[in-house]
């Protein structure tokens, strides 16, 4: 048992750090460090830089062109990019659909889809949630009827994050209604330029356009876009969900944002207020404890000796901490967090912010936005059900 990284791991970290220092565009990092608005172009630019280096699919095995890193190496990569202010990788392609295609897709699908994902050229969206379904994913209602070599898709998906930018979307669709809800679901890859698809924005409480509704009206999908077997999509979906949760704690971003909380507290003069600083101190302990929890999981994954069944805890704690640091930043801003001036959340805005406190402009909106983290990806209530199951049976 040893807390120190091995010399090899240290060297690996140094290499990542040096590369990030040279390759992460500083205008993008500036936006990330200050919660300013990231454009599609920003995200795409960074994705392509990573793609060129072969690191966009940093979790991929070597046989599919990934670096083949182990759990600790992946963590170090995530840590170095997060601390440097890199945007989070948009996960729908490289983190979500790619592993499903690798595990269950045909060799043709590998050849056709993986390169575009690895390079960052093709933007994928997720078509899981449906209206009224929420955490109950198995109640998929969007139908796909087989007609010859095509599926005809009708229905609606919702909460499709960044779907307005999507080139392709992977969907759970219902191909059979006869059995239990979990059976009769298929996993379909759909070109978002297909006729009959309409993407409508959902405006969030912070005024941002981040998620969408996606409508399917007699959309024709070539049967070759079915992943694996018909009616086995639920199995693939669960595979995906287990991948989705690995970095769910997002502890490296938390470390970066904890630093930022301190910077803002100092600028706002509340660092010297013992009451406020105590709140930061509690957050610091929370972050360190979460990091230790994550490291324990990584170590177990690396050695394969003891598996730790605590994904639910990571999701719960990680999301609570995300909410807490955005809350503390807003509270540090005090009344000056209250102006809602959307332009001030764009980089380079030159207007007058009340009191000159332009650094506070995005804080309340970020706080509002982060309320989603305890809801999505399996609400924290669902996670507690899962955790309780591990303790009580």
């Amino acid at each position, binding site marked *: 048992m040893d807390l120190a990284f091995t010399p090899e791991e240290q060297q690996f970290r140094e290499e990542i750090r040096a590369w990030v220092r040279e390759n992460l565009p500083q205008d993008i990092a500036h936006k990330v460090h200050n919660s300013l608005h990231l454009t599609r172009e920003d995200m795409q630019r960074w994705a392509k830089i990573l793609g060129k280096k072969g690191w966009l699919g940093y979790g991929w095995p070597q046989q599919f062109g990934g670096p083949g890193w182990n759990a600790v190496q992946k963590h170090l990569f995530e840590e170095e990019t997060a601390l440097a202010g890199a945007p989070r990788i948009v996960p729908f392609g490289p983190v979500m659909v790619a592993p499903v295609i690798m595990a269950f897709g045909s060799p043709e699908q590998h050849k056709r889809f993986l390169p575009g994902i690895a390079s960052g050229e093709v933007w994928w969206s997720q078509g899981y949630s449906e209206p009224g379904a929420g*955490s109950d994913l198995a109640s998929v209602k969007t139908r796909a009827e087989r007609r010859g070599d095509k599926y005809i898709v009708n229905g609606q998906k919702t909460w499709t994050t960044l779907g307005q930018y999507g080139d392709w979307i992977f969907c759970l669709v219902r191909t059979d209604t006869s059995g239990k809800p979990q059976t009769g679901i298929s996993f379909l890859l759909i070109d978002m330029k297909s006729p009959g698809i309409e993407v409508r924005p959902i405006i969030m409480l912070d005024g941002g356009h981040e998620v969408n509704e996606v409508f399917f009206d007699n959309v024709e999908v070539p049967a070759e876009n079915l992943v694996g077997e018909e009616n086995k999509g639920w199995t693939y979906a669960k595979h995906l969900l287990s991948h989705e949760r690995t970095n769910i704690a997002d502890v490296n971003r938390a470390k970066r944002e904890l630093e930022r909380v301190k910077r803002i507290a100092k600028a706002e003069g509340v660092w010297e207020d013992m009451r406020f600083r105590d709140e930061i101190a509690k957050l610091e302990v929370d972050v360190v404890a979460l990091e230790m929890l994550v490291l324990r999981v990584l170590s177990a994954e690396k050695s394969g000796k003891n598996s730790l069944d605590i994904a639910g805890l990571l999701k719960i704690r990680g999301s609570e901490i995300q909410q807490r640091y955005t809350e503390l930043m807003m509270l540090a801003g005090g009344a000056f967090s209250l102006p809602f001036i959307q332009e001030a959340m764009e980089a380079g805005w030159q207007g007058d912010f*009340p009191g000159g406190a332009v650094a506070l402009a995005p804080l309340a909106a970020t706080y*509002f936005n982060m309320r989603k983290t305890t809801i999505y990806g399996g609400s924290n209530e669902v996670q507690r059900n899962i955790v309780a199951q591990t303790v009580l049976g």
Partner: protein
Amino acid sequence: MDFDFSDDQEQLRDAVRRWVDRSYTFERRRAAVKAGGFDRTTYGELAELGLAGLYVPEDQGGMGMGPVEAMVVMEELGRGMVLEPLGQTLIASGVLGAYAPQDLQDAWLPRIASGDALVVLAHQERRARWRLDVSETQATESGGAWQLSGTKSLVPAGDEADAFLVPAMAQGRLALFLVEQGGGVHASGYVTQDGSRAAEVKFDKAPATLVAQDGLPALEHAVDIGIAALCAEAVGVIDKTMALTADYMNTRKQFGVPIASFQALRHRMADMKMQQELARSMSYYASLKLNAPAEERRRAMARAKYQLNVAMRFVGQNSVQLHGGIGVTDEYIGSHYFKKLTQMELTFGDTLHHLGEVSSRMQDTAGVFA
């Protein structure tokens, strides 16, 4: 000791509630937010109901009512998330009536009561945070005429108001002034998180009238009137938030049953109900202590605002959580109640500030009457 409302108070509540339900729809409010967060027509309707003159004596054209009536009204306005800052009018009329020279009262109170003049408190400065006893705004006198220079932030409806109550340093001591919109006043407006309007107001040798030489007691009183009004407004917001949440939980199904059937969520609602009733209790307390001697009044407001802040955050955050995805969309009314609760928490002192006030004002004995 009696917490029943009088028939007059119940009638007042009904009148305001009727106006909110019939005239102040969510669609109208949404349009007002888009248009900048303040609508003079709406404010005129409030004045027509007599509300702008609630604290104005009857012989000045007002209703001559007290804190309990103000509480009743603010609860109902909170329930409708009314954007127009009636709390500011309560502050202005209350403070002018208690501290201003008679001629100033005669000049302004009737206009406030009729709704012709909107007067708001302009006290927030960048470096002061929640402290009331410091100001970088300077007042100078020359031949009996005062001029003010300085900047006040987050002034409610600051570019729409007709005049401001402004604390400023006069010969090294905080005094309170009335400044009219016009020459020497530059107000730059914007919308705030809850959709209402505020402004950065710069005073550049603006002509001013002295309200109170000894400004701190008047300013503290102003803020306390604001706290009591805000507490009542918050009770309305919380009540509506609870009703929305309960409705949603009984409608929304997951895994084939209404989510209101899940015990963990039911217990959460029980905890929210606790905060709701504690909030209402402490709002009563704030209003009933508003006319107490200054020290007792300040202690009571700190206790009340602390409790309300705790309740607002707890109910707001959990309401969003219990709603799930819909709760974080702009389209759904509930998210606006949440933002309103958040903004109120950051108005007139945040939770830690008031905890500090409670802490420093503690005495050996404590209770409602101590």
